[in-house]
């Protein structure tokens, strides 16, 4: 779920000095993050006290034409709950940091808020992963335990592989992913059973396609940057 074409942008945006400075800054940030997010914070820090605010944030992941009729989930002390029943098969939800790759230094960053609206194939095949990972995190499992549990769940086929057409909208202007990328950019995400990214043009300079290979989830994720937030306003292009 980690985002953005920051790598390509950095490469394209300036001279060697800038790259070095950015790299150094990122290293410092990564060190900070490593130091900061070594263990789960108190649960309250991952929850949103205002239920209506969480509903609104979840809906902001997609244009109103999609999210207004979507089912909306909110995170409570024992997992996700349905806050609003839907009519169009989409489900909007604010994911937390533990949906990031396991090697992400901000895996337990309690500030992360990642709203997304899943289409029906993704509801069937991605949402179970969200539920499972959240359940493990909230049960207080360590990152290693979570990794092993998720791997076992896929090995036993308790978690499904992505269906054809599984995708989601992540176009919320209010999204916050990490100290590294902030709110990144508006994008769509597509999931596939794990693929070789070289056949897709992902992460080539200038390509709007970004890729994440997950582990232990046997999933390849493609992020396609788009130019506008869900409210129709233009996203920054730098």
């Amino acid at each position: 779920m980690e985002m953005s074409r920051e790598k390509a942008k950095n490469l394209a945006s300036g001279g060697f000095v800038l790259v070095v400075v950015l790299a150094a800054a990122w290293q410092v940030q990564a060190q900070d993050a490593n130091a900061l997010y070594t263990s789960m914070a108190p649960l309250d820090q991952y929850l949103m006290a205002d239920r209506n605010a969480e509903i609104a944030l979840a809906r902001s992941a997609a244009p109103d034409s999609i999210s207004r009729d979507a089912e909306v989930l909110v995170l409570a002390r024992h997992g996700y709950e349905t806050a609003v029943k839907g009519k169009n098969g989409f489900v909007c939800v604010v994911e937390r940091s533990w949906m990031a790759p396991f090697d992400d230094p901000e895996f337990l960053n309690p500030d992360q808020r990642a709203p997304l609206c899943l289409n029906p194939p993704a509801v069937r095949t991605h949402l179970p992963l969200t539920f499972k990972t959240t359940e493990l995190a909230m049960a207080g499992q360590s990152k290693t335990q979570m990794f092993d549990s998720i791997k076992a769940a896929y090995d036993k086929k308790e978690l499904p592989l992505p269906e054809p057409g599984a995708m989601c909208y992540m176009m919320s202007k209010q999204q916050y992913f990490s100290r590294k990328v902030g709110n990144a950019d508006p994008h769509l995400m597509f999931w596939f059973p794990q693929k070789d990214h070289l056949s897709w043009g992902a992460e080539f300079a200038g390509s709007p396609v970004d890729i994440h290979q997950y582990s232990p989830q046997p999933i390849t994720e493609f992020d396609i940057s788009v130019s506008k937030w869900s409210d129709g306003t233009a996203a920054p292009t730098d």
Partner: protein
Amino acid sequence: MGQTLRIFALAGSVLVVALGATSQMRAQSKTSYPSMAALDQYLMPDRNAEIALARTAAPDSISRDAKILVLGSHGYETAVEGKNGFVCAVERGWMAPFDNPEFWNPKIRGPLCFTPPAARSILPMTYKRTEMVLAGQSKDQIMEGIAAFAKKELPPLAPGAFTYMMSKEAYLTDRGDHNIAHLMFYTPVMDGAVWGADLPKSPVMLNPQFALEGIDVFMVLTGMWSDGTLAPVNN
């Protein structure tokens, strides 16, 4: 149609246009290209220009190592061998949906770069349609041939097949700005609502290009040309 955004799929893709276009305009468009024009009008006399145009479909980092096809009088020919598995070509009007009024528009130039999965499972349709067109078949004959081809010979759709169509120099329709920067994803036929296509402010559109072939084409607007400059997004 009022203020509704109308979408017309053309030339291997596209396109949007015409907020409030009148029926008179549509009628004019329909009568403009009733049959195939002289073959020369579809060809590009400058082979290097066609190679360059094909390459503009994707960022240089992708297209510079792609295989490049150009259209000759007997079909597509390999002009440049590739190294990365991508294939870039310039499609013509007959890659539009069969009921598109610009199906025979000889001005259409639709550069696109196929990812390797798309080169395996989508490019054969470009070859087949073009082969039948250049053999002088009627649209009805082509439709019949394509239906049979899709049923018996078309390779299975590779998961995640998509193409880049981010050329600033494309000419996809007589309408509007003639062009739009996008990617095209190919899926088994499914309800467009499953992707939230064609809804207000959605960057996704459903293109009926390959309805006969049993393949859905979802366009995702990128808002960026292949050269990195901003592209208009008319939604």
